[in-house]
C-alpha cells in the first residue's frame, strides 16, 4: 500500500469519532412498537365513506386542517403533492387523507375543490362534530377556534402529518416544516417495508 493510502487511512481513523452515525430509517418521528391507526368513520370528499381500511395496501399520509387555513395547510399539502410527484410511478401507493378541523365551513364539496388545487388524488374527510371529535381524541389532535374581526374565525390546529403503513399501522409522525424530500424518503421506506 502506498504511503498516501496509509496516510488517508490513518486520517480517517483519527476523524472517525467525529463522523456521524448512520442515519435512521425514517426522517419522521417513529412510534415503537407501531399500533393500528385509529379508524376513521367520516364522509369522504369523493362521495364515498372515508375509512382508512379503504386504503389498506397503500401508505397513508393523514393531515388535519381546514380549507380557510392561511399558511400551514397550503404548505403541508403542497409539500405532500411535491413528494408524490418525486415518487413517479410509486406515487400510486401513497394516499393523502385530509381531515377537516372546521366542519362548519368544510363540506365534502369544498374540500374536494380545495384539495384538487394541490393533487386530485388527495381525499378529504368531514363529518359531525362528534365523529370528528372522536378522531381528534384518538390521534391527540387539538383544534381551537380563534375569533377574528367581522365575525370571521380561524382554527389553531395540530400540524403534524401522520404516516400509516400499508398494513394500517400508525408508524410515524412528521412534524410541520419538513421538506418534500423527507416525505418522499419516508414514503419510499414505508412502501418498501414488509
Amino acid at each position, binding site marked *: 500500500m502506498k504511503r498516501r493510502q496509509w496516510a488517508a487511512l490513518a486520517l480517517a481513523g483519527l476523524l472517525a*469519532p*467525529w463522523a*456521524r452515525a448512520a442515519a435512521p430509517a425514517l426522517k*419522521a*418521528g417513529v*412510534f*415503537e412498537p407501531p399500533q393500528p391507526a385509529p379508524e376513521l368513520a367520516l364522509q369522504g370528499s369523493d362521495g364515498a365513506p372515508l375509512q382508512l381500511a379503504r386504503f389498506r395496501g397503500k401508505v397513508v399520509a393523514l393531515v388535519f386542517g381546514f380549507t380557510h387555513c392561511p399558511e400551514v395547510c397550503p404548505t403541508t399539502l403542497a409539500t405532500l403533492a411535491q413528494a408524490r410527484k418525486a415518487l413517479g410511478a410509486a406515487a400510486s401507493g401513497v394516499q393523502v387523507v385530509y381531515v377537516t378541523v372546521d366542519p362548519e365551513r368544510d363540506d365534502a364539496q369544498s374540500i374536494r375543490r380545495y384539495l384538487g388545487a394541490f393533487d386530485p388524488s388527495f381525499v378529504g374527510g368531514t363529518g359531525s362534530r362528534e365523529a370528528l371529535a372522536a378522531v381528534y381524541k384518538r*390521534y391527540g389532535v387539538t383544534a381551537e377556534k380563534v375569533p377574528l374581526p367581522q365575525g370571521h374565525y380561524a382554527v389553531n390546529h395540530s400540524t403534524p402529518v401522520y404516516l400509516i403503513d400499508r398494513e394500517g399501522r400508525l408508524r410515524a*409522525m412528521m412534524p410541520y416544516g419538513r421538506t418534500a424530500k423527507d416525505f418522499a424518503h419516508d414514503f419510499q421506506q414505508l412502501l418498501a417495508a414488509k
Partner: protein
Amino acid sequence: MKARRVLAWALGLLGLALLCAAGWAAFAPIRLASRDQLFEIPKGTWARRMAGDKVEILPDRIDLTLGLNDTLLLRNLDEVPQQFGPVLIMPGQSFRLPFEAASTYSFACSAHASGQMSVVVSEHPAPGLPALRWRWRYWQEQWTMRDKG
C-alpha cells in the same frame, strides 16, 4: 525556602494538569453512550395528576446537538395514553424523533403554560473552544440532573 519551592512545583503541576484537562476537553472527540435524549412518563403519572399533583416531565426547552444527542426519545411507561409534547403515545410505546438540521423547532404542547415546547438543535461543536464550551454545558446539565435525582 524549600517549602516555597515545593509549593511552586505543586502549583506548576496543578496548572499543567488543568491545561492538559482543558486541552483534552477541547480536542478529544466527544462521545456519548447514545444519541437519544430520553424523557419518560413514569408509571402512575396519570393517577398522580388525577390526585391533583402537578407533574411536569418535558421542560419548555430541550437542547440537542447534531451528531451527539440529536434524537428526542419520549417513552410512556404509564398505563394510559399520554399526550407527550406534540404526540399521543400509547401505554408502553415510545416515540423517537430524529433531527438532521440545526434550528429551533416549536411544538404545541398543552402541558406547558405557554402552550409551546421548543427543541433547539445546535451544530456539532468544532474541536477547540466550541467543544470545550459544549462539554462544560453538558457537565453542568448532568450535575443539575444528578442533584434533582
